[in-house]
């Protein structure tokens, strides 16, 4: 177990970070390079204002007609994303590791709050699962891969919380937590989860298409 931990928290982590970072950079580079030829409308109608408005109105809940039509879902999506990114970055335990490895760290959340927010992420995830099952228009679109990605995106929070609470075998939970996080990082650039960065580009594109070209608000 210790050896596994050593690998996962050492080289394993590096590999995951590199694949994650390089993967996204390569994917973006490829997309941007082919876009010169085949996405002329994107390049022809650039206007920063429309890009920023198109992004902003979908970053915050209820700023688009679409999210206003499902206000509760919109709120859950917003909170989920905020916590999903914020909690791991601002967690005390993670920042101790950052300090150890790089000699710097970020401000941290109080332990109790971090735990609550972790449970919020899990709660949001449960809502997504239920929604995916209950709403026919969502269920019909959902494939096995979608289920896998949803569960994978939640798994570091579940295992992390179990390890923190020391429910179940601690070593196993900790190793699972790290392993699943690494798998998640590696998969992000090559799946729909690449929306972590592609969201900004696709929103920019539709912002130009509707906004710059027509003055229409795509939100």
């Amino acid at each position: 177990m210790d050896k596994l931990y050593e690998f996962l928290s050492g080289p394993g982590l590096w590999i995951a970070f590199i694949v994650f970072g390089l993967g996204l950079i390569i994917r973006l580079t490829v997309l941007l390079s082919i876009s010169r030829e085949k996405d002329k409308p994107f390049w022809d109608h650039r206007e920063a204002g429309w890009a920023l408005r198109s992004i902003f109105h979908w970053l915050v809940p209820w700023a688009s007609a679409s999210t206003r039509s499902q206000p509760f879902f919109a709120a859950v999506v917003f909170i989920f994303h905020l916590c999903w990114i914020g909690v791991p970055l601002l967690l005390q335990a993670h920042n101790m590791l950052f300090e150890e490895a790089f000699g710097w760290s970020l401000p941290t959340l109080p332990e109790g709050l971090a735990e609550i927010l972790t449970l919020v992420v899990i709660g949001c995830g449960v809502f997504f699962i239920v929604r995916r099952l209950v709403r026919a228009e969502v269920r019909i679109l959902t494939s096995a891969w979608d289920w896998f990605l949803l569960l994978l995106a939640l798994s570091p929070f579940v295992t992390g919380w179990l390890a923190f609470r020391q429910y179940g075998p601690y070593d196993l939970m900790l190793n699972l937590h790290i392993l699943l996080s690494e798998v998640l990082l590696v998969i992000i650039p090559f799946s729909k989860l690449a929306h972590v960065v592609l969201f900004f580009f696709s929103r920019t594109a539709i912002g130009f298409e509707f906004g710059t070209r027509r003055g229409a608000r795509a939100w």
Partner: protein
Amino acid sequence: MSEAAEKTAPEQAPAPPKPVDAKKIQSILQANDGARMRTWLSICSRCGLCAESCFFYLAKNNDPKVSPAYKAKVSLGVIERKKGRVSRQFLESLVDIIWGQCTTCRRCSMYCPFGIDIAALIAVARAVCNSQGVGPERLLEVTENIRKTGNQMAMASEDFVETCDWMAEEYGETVAGLEIPVDKKGADYMYTVNPREPMYYPQDVGMAAQIFHVAGLNWTMPSTGWDSTNLAMFAGNKAVATMPVKAMYDKALELGAKAILITECGHAYRSAKYEGPYWVGAPGGLPPVPVIHSVELFRNLLRDGKIKIKHKFEHPVTYQDPCNVSRNGGLWDVGRELVNMLCSDFRDMSPNREHNHCCGGGGGYIPMGAPFKKRRMESGRVKAEQIKATGAKYVIVPCHNCFDQINDLNKEYELGVKVVSFKEIITELMIIPEQFQPAEEEEAEAPLEAAEEAKPGAGEAQDS
């Protein structure tokens, strides 16, 4: 693809089972394989938010199979996944989905959190089908008309010019000195129309001419390139869709026209202003001369006092935002300004402006004809309810397809409304200044005779 269309179009019988040309499909996929398409196809999170944006979905009582994401998934999604190696039977099964359940109105594209242009995905699926000669029969026929004659109704250039002359004479009875100049060089506006105007509703041409003449516009009709509609665009045939656009651009340049003016038609505007430039490879994605929609010109003429009205139209009116004039044309506010300048009791629909629903007749739906009529009436329920809720007695519609659809909905849902174009209202209310008042005695004869000649019986009432 055009050969295939030629063979299948005239008769009802299905084409002999021809193998699918996967290479051709792959070349279409390849041509569309840009960064946007790749991103759109890969990042859909299956959130389902697009569903409620679609009027087909709403009219089908939230049938999940009609949600935009699902329609894209089972059409282009499958074609992409199989890399174009699909069966003819499969492509034929898509007709009901990508034509029968979508008007490419692009409302869903505005309701997707990622801004996935779902209608653009459907358009690519249409192109794939069209490349194999698959599509609604009437659209394939019309595409052939365009390919052979340059306009969708296969109207000869001479007939078109003759109709213009006839209308100049006929409408010269109310506006003295009325002319419909053809191929005049250096005009400010080259006016392009929908072939159904010269073919079936020549008064549309006459009314436009009256407005332009009274406003003192320097305008012309082109003898070629006058059809600004583009049903090949909706059939998914880019090669043929390019032809009328190119003819129109070329003619405008040849005549030295300062702008191309589009009749009260939605998709003509989208084709001429937004899609056309990319088909002909125009730099910057811009047409060679500015493209202006009638709604905008009329607004300007009234705003600037070039056209004055006797009084405002007093009946309650509502305004239909054609998708390709409002959402895809940016003119929702211009249209409302014009309505408010003309009418005193304007009752807007909800939702409205760029968020308004498609009438159900767009995207090639009206020309798809009888086989799709029942479904068109079903999906039009959303629009019918919108209109009913306004309590309006008149619906102003600056688009021929919306015009036909709302007329049909009017009967189907007993809305009790009258569908009118801006031209009709303006010519009804317009003050004809003294210099354009026909001199009752001296000049009445000549145009009357001519009108009688062209259309027997037309001038009878005044003759006696």
